[in-house]
């Protein structure tokens, strides 16, 4: 009964995520000044701890924007495994996918997220060296 309800709720969430309009990848490059500053802080600090509520909000907003790059299924797998420390088996039970599919989705999501983040960091570094950030259309 519990598993059944979990799966229904998970699938409903997935459908809602899918139907929500996804931003194109280029939109991720349009960072606000706060977000650029936050990223700069991350690269310089060794052991990061969120300093204020504002910091947490900036991070959450940035996370939303970066995660929008991923398909709904990949987002779900990554947030459950890396964010909520769920096991692959638990995700498989909640979604009805096979364990190998969960692993593949998480791997793909991690890779895509890392690549998007690398682009952002490189852009941030360039803007620090070469002046103001030029937003892509």
């Amino acid at each position, binding site marked *: 009964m519990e598993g059944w309800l979990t799966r*229904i709720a998970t699938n409903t969430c997935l459908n*809602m995520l899918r139907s929500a309009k996804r931003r194109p990848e280029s939109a991720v490059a349009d960072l606000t000044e706060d977000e650029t500053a936050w990223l700069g802080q991350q690269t310089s600090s060794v052991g990061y701890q969120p300093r204020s509520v504002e910091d947490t909000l900036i991070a959450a907003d940035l996370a939303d924007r970066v995660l929008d790059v991923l398909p709904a299924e990949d987002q779900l797998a*990554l*947030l459950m495994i890396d964010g909520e420390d769920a096991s692959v088996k638990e995700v498989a039970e909640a979604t009805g996918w096979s364990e190998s599919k969960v692993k593949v989705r998480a791997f793909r999501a991690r890779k895509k997220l890392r690549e998007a983040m690398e682009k952002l960091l490189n852009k941030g570094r360039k803007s620090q060296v070469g002046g103001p950030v030029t937003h892509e259309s």
Partner: protein
Amino acid sequence: MKVNHIIEILDSTSLKNLSAEQLKIVQIHIRDCMSCESAYQAAKISSRLIKQRAQTTVEPSPFFQTRVMAAWRERQAIENTPVLSRLWKSAGALVSSMAVTTAALAALSFVIPAPISTSADETTAAYSAESVLLGQTPDDQMSYDQVLSTIYVDGDEGK
């Protein structure tokens, strides 16, 4: 060590789940490799962002409960429907079309009589390779008596 190997380690699992040995390999490698250092930084920040995102409590939309309950009712309705009814729903059109085709074929085979053929027709309808080559129609064929007379005349001439 290959550059790809470090990146594979970074993507294979969450950073916090890396073993001490894997972490050591990564740390040693990124001292000399700029691209891997950049990838490691990106993976670290991504991991933090995901943690932050997971900690944020999201209020479900007002339609969420409605949608879950609708899905629940739909699922229950499917569970309560008899198996034969479900089968008919999914394969009814196919089964109906097959039945109609079978009935049509049966009607064509048994109800409509086939034309009666006589042995005479079969003889006239027969074509030999020779007649086809010489452009002869079956009507040109000799009767039995003609054949006999031709043979015996030829036989007499031989004598």
